[in-house]
């Protein structure tokens, strides 16, 4: 590790593989970013510029679509719905999932492992198989087209996800941390909230943000469980794309899409910053 390698062939090979890696990274980035770039580009085009052949890279940019769609009543309302549902589902699932993940990681309980696996397996059921029964239950309870219904529906897939992520995170922390806190005067709950939660904060926040992103983009449950008041942005986008009267309004579609993607990108950048930090460095012998 510390020895200095001066032999040229080795060095050349290393720089070659370095170059290959950079080229690979660029290729993959282009592959993933091009559609996003095209979406943003299209959102600033007039309808006439969208379907030219060959496609235009330079055109008279306009924000007409943005001003039109975001001053209309329904899009801001749907954006607000999405914010409420995504943050609500994210926060509820992080609270429940973190506590149950901790229990799975630490409490010696007969059958805990089986229980955990069963919860994970419930994720193997295709969402469409759950969406229809959920709709029937919601209708019988008079809960269709409400934020809380969607929040609870999202929790059914977010909680197992949070629980397993947090479980593996807690398992990686030495159990002596809580034991030390308990000797120092805490109850188990005290040790969890005063020691484990602060240490795990980067992990908890990252998981929260992933959960919010998952809920933010969810289409199927929202399509089935909402009709007017609680409709979210993905449903609105699907509506624009499937507009059969006037044909799909591509400018509108991409403009709404762009606005929807911005918070996701910001969140993803935040998560990256947190995940880079060492979480429990220094707790143990090192």
């Amino acid at each position: 590790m510390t020895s200095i390698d001066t032999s040229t062939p080795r060095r050349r090979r290393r720089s070659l593989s370095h170059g290959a890696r950079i080229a690979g990274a660029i290729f993959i980035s282009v592959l993933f970013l091009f559609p996003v770039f095209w979406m943003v580009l299209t959102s600033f085009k007039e309808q006439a510029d969208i379907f030219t052949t060959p496609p235009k890279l330079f055109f008279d940019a306009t924000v007409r679509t943005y001003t039109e769609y975001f001053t209309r009543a329904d899009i801001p309302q749907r954006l607000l719905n999405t914010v409420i549902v995504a943050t609500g589902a994210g926060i509820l699932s992080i609270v429940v999932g973190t506590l149950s993940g901790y229990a799975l990681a630490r409490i010696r309980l007969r059958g805990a492992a089986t229980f955990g696996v069963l919860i994970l397996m419930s994720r193997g059921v295709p969402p469409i198989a759950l969406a229809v029964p959920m709709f029937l239950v919601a209708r019988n309870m008079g809960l269709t087209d409400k934020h809380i219904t969607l929040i609870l529906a999202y929790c059914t897939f977010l909680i197992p996800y949070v629980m397993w992520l947090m479980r593996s995170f807690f398992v990686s922390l030495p159990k002596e941390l809580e034991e030390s806190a308990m000797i120092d005067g805490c109850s188990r709950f005290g040790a969890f909230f005063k020691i484990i939660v602060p240490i795990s904060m980067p992990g908890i926040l990252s998981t929260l943000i992933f959960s919010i992103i998952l809920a933010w983009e969810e289409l199927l449950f929202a399509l089935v469980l909402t009709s007017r008041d609680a409709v979210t942005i993905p449903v609105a986008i699907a509506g624009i794309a499937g507009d059969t009267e006037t044909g799909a309004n591509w400018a509108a579609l991409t403009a709404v899409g762009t606005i929807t993607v911005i918070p996701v990108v910001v969140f993803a950048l935040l998560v990256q910053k947190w995940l880079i930090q060492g979480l429990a460095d220094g707790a143990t012998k090192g």
Partner: protein
Amino acid sequence: MSTLDIKDVHKSYGAIDVIHGISLNIQDGEFVALVGPSGCGKSTLLRMIAGLEEVTQGDIAIGERTVTDLPPKARDIAMVFQNYALYPHMNVRDNMGFALKQRRTPKPEIRQRVDDAARILGLEALLDRKPRALSGGQRQRVAMGRAIVRNPNVFLFDEPLSNLDAKLRVQMRSEIKELHQRLGTTTVYVTHDQIEAMTLADRVVVMNGGVIEQEGPPLELYDHPKSVFVAAFIGSPPMNFLEGTIQNGDVFKLDDGTALKLPKGDPKGRERITMGVRPEHFELTDAGWPATVSVVEATGSETQITARMAGKMIRVLVRGRTDVKAGQTIHLKASPELIHMFDPAPIPDVALEEDY
């Protein structure tokens, strides 16, 4: 400060019995070392004293108070873990003051007591650092500091030095001893290193397979081990053992037919025994038990000779230097009171696990 009484304590994990009935009375201010091979139940016993493991059967009392069913926080003990378990999100000052804060000690007093403890351990310059910015030795010191700030009834240590390098380990060992002399707190110290146990403790408790094999002051265990296990475990390099039969009162017949003349018979009159002599208790003579030298290692202050006697490898430690050479035949003797006789028993691995 306080006494600690352990009365017939048992521990099982499900169907597996780990501790099979241990009783131990520890005096106020006494330093007791629990020593034994890995897996013999030392940590389990210590964790039951701390309240981190349930006691399956039996009772534990600290002072006059039975604590068997009390949670750790109600026992007024402090523990130093093998991996230190420092709170990574708090700086050294907050790590050390955490227990006092939990007890709602006034802030100025916390400050004062953390400062005092930091001075004792030489941590003053590190108080504002996070654990991740400390070396292994410094982390170990902070873990100790966290324990002494509390001024608890009992200190519990679980192999606190085993993650340090050899030199630091020796240094911290004397610091722990000094600390105990200064504070006089009742201490239970778990280690698998018999030298640590011997040098630190007022009393050494040798554990084996979930029971106490023998307990007593360090030198008493060295001088009068009651079993092959204790004899093998205490002392380094370990005792030499030979198994055989006593014939005609003072002839020791080994299984390969070699006969050694003993300076004394077995006081208990057993026929078959395991005989033990410590390497440092052999003397070189002109006519004694013959052995063929295979290796001679001199360090200046002493010389270790490895030799074969009746087909068995033995070690001889002589003070100073000697002109013995490999391949030569030497003759050995030991004074009668330094020849140990035990019930025959297999020699535990610890005697072969060389770590000195």
